[in-house]
Each structure stands twice: as C-alpha cells, then as structure tokens.
C-alpha cells in the first residue's frame, strides 16, 4: 500500500499535471470548493424563498429542493452531461458539467440547512426588525441571515464533507479528479486493486475527517461565543 502511495503520489495529488491537466486531490478540492462557493448564494436564495411570505415563492422553492433531493447525484451528472451542452449551445468540458451538477445538487441540501437556521430563530427577531420599519429583505439581510448562518456554520462545514465525497462521481464523465487518479493507478499496477482503492479511501478519509474535526471545533467555539466567554 505504501509502495503504491510512494510510487504514484504525484498522480494522486495533482494527476497528470504539469505535463497534462490538473487532477487528483487538487482537482477534487477545486471541484468541491467551486461547488460550495457557487451553491452557497443559491442555497441562501432558495432558503429565503422557502421562508418568505410569498406563497408562490415558497411553493416553487419547496418543490425544487424536494425534486433535487429526490434524485441521485449520479443521475444529475448524467443529465447535465447531455443537457448543459444543449442549453449553452456549445461543447462544455466534463469539469464544467460536473461543477454545474454539484452546484444544483448541493444547493438543495445547503438550502435545507440555511432554512433550518432561519426557522430556528425566535420569531421575535423578525417581528422586532419589521417593527423598526425594516423591509422583509432588510430584516433578512441585517438580522436573520447573520444569525442563521453563524448558527449553521458547523452544519455547512459538515455539508462540505459530503460535497468532497460527491465529487468522486465526476469520475463517470471523465473528470480527472482523485477517483480518476486511483483508477489510472489501478490500470498501471494492474494486480493491486484492493490496495489501490484503500489508498483512495484513505485520501478521502483524511480530507473529510479533517473537515469534520474543524466543524466540531467551530461548533464549540460558537457555543462559547454565545455564552459570552469569547
């Protein structure tokens, strides 16, 4: 196992780069980061729609999240693989396709987290903001969202763990990321699939475990802050 890791470390970390496209862990992290950063504002929008006073917005956003959450990511990736080029009218790289699919998928899950954060705030926060004459949007922007997002920060970090694992599915449309690297290593070594995929698992585990620990640390810190100790 260590031999595999030692012999193919570069392939695992950066793929064929610098002679070829960037891949491996680096590309996995880029995929996940892009997915998180782009789906986040979307998720906030969807979550706000879900708690908004306008019924058609609530219904639409609710239907959207239920639909997306009820479909496997793999299907969304396949679907995006064929649909995105049609929508854009041009050829689209596998990487872009994967990012789009992850954004759609994760925004629905993140929206659930943000919505839970908004709904768990005491009703009085919104009432007092509106009583000061702030519009609904202003109340959201200055009072509700800052509190909801702080409270939900650990959950959001935890969700990024799921995003990292989700990126492995980009492999099926040929995006050179970590899983793709492992498959390449497997074809090179040929006789050691078990060990190769153990190494792959270890990579994912280290990334995700570190993030989970970070989320736990954040949670404790926020709890301390709320008690006024920090």
């Amino acid at each position, binding site marked *: 196992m260590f031999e595999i890791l030692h012999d193919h470390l570069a392939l695992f970390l950066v793929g064929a780069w610098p002679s070829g496209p960037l891949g491996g862990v680096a590309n996995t992290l880029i995929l996940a980061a892009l997915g998180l950063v782009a789906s986040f504002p979307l998720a906030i929008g969807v979550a706000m729609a879900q708690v908004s006073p306008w019924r058609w917005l609530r219904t639409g956003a609710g239907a959207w999240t239920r639909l997306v959450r009820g479909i496997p990511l793999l299907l969304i990736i396949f679907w995006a693989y064929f649909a995105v080029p049609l929508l854009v009218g041009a050829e689209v790289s596998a990487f872009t396709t994967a990012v789009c699919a992850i954004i759609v998928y994760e925004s629905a899950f993140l929206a659930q987290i943000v919505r839970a954060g908004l709904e768990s705030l*005491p009703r*009085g*926060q919104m*009432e*007092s*903001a*509106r*009583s*000061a*004459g*702030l*519009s609904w949007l*202003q109340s959201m922007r*200055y*009072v509700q969202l*800052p*509190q909801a997002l*702080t409270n939900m920060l650990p959950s959001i970090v935890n969700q990024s763990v799921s995003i990292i694992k989700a990126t492995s599915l980009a492999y099926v449309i040929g995006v050179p990321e970590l899983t793709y690297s492992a498959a390449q290593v497997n074809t090179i070594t040929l006789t050691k699939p078990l060990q190769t995929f153990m190494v792959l698992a270890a990579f994912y585990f280290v990334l995700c475990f570190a993030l989970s620990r970070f989320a736990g640390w954040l949670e404790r810190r926020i709890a301390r802050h*709320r*008690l*006024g100790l920090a």
Partner: protein
Amino acid sequence: MLQFENVNKYYGTYHVLKGIDAKIGRGEVVVVCGPSGSGKSTLIRTVTRLEAIQSGRILFEGRDVVARNGNVNRLRARIGFVFQSFNLFQNLSVRQNLILGPTKVLGLSRDAAHAQAETLLAKVGLANKIDAMPANLSGGQQQRVAIARALAMKPPLMLFDEPTSALDPEMVQEVLQVMRTLADEGMTMMIVTHEMGFAREVASRVWFMDEGQLLEDAPPARFFDRPAHARAQRFLQDVLRPAPRTAALID
C-alpha cells in the same frame, strides 16, 4: 392620534377581538389590563399589523393602518414597539441595535445615529453598555435598550406589550422608571401590563378587557376605586389582593 373603530378579529371561528371602539389622544398614556387571554396583546399588535384584523378600522394619525395602499414599513417606522421578550437583535451590539433602524429606514447618517444612540442610552441609564452584546445584558438592561431602540426612530406613539412580564421582580422597577420618564415628557403610549401600581400612578386612562371585549375605559382613579363592570371588580380583587385568596386556597 390612534383610533379603533369596531375592530374584529377571529382565529378561525374564535372571536378574539369583539367590536373594539376606542381612542388615544396625543400625550395620553393608556394602560390596557385584563386577564390573560382577554385579547390585550392581540389588540396592541393589530396597531402595527403584527396581527391582521378581519373587520373594522384602525386609524393612526388619521390614516387607516390596514389600508391596502398603505406602506406598512413607513407606518411601523412611526410607531415604537416594545416586546415582552425584548427581541434585541442578537447578532448586533447595543450600539448597532440602536442605529440599524435610523440609518436603514430613516436615512440618518451614521454619525448622527451614533450621537443619538449615545444620548438615548444615557437616558435609559446604560451609557456604559454601548458596546455590549445583548446576550451579556440582564433582562432589565435588555428591555431598557429595547426602549431606547424604539425611541431612536423618534416615534410619536410608543406601544408596550407586557414590557415587564418577562423580568425578574428586582428589574421591573428600572424599566417602569424609564417608562415613567417618557410619560412625564408627554410621550403618547399604549401599554399592556399587569403592573397595577404603575397604571394607577402614570396612566391617563385604563382600558379593561375581557374575552375580547373592551369593558371599561376610565381614568385610573375611577377604574380602581369604582369599576363599573362586575368583571373588572373581580379582576381588581384578584390582582390587588392576591395574598388572602392564595391563603384561602392553601387552607
């Protein structure tokens, strides 16, 4: 300044407010009292449309607050509302709590809003807490900040919905003192409270409500000494002399 005209409200088939007709003039302090569930809080919340009404009119400065073309944000900016549970913005410091409305709604400059925040905090006796976070303040302090926050909008009318009901007994007076000062300065106020001593001392008129009806509208002297309605007499007996009844219950 504020006028209820045959206001009715229902929760489903439950009739919460039954044809409320009443008026508050400029500079008046009206204390609304009555047993719990009588509709006092619901009534005060209808004024800024925190609760909808099904029929009747509520006029503030001569304008119907539930009019379809009315701007609810502009209405609320002109009416201060103090809640039972304070509801300070938990993510903002005391200072920021006091400048958010004035800067975002009234368009006051930050400097002017800051200066005003300092003056108002000094007025409620909390000048030294300007940079504190709400979570680090006692209940009484939070409620005083909440009053200052409402005053920061320079409203001609202040509404108080049981402002001392969530407070420990020793903190009630510091909040009532601030409200007393406001009354002395001529602020028009509508106050839902169980503090009968305060009502007797500060109110221009007392409204007594029971089961959604406004049963009495009288100056405090008359209300406390010679309540016209039997229900009000019983209520006063209960709140003013709780000790013997409790003793009787224990026996």
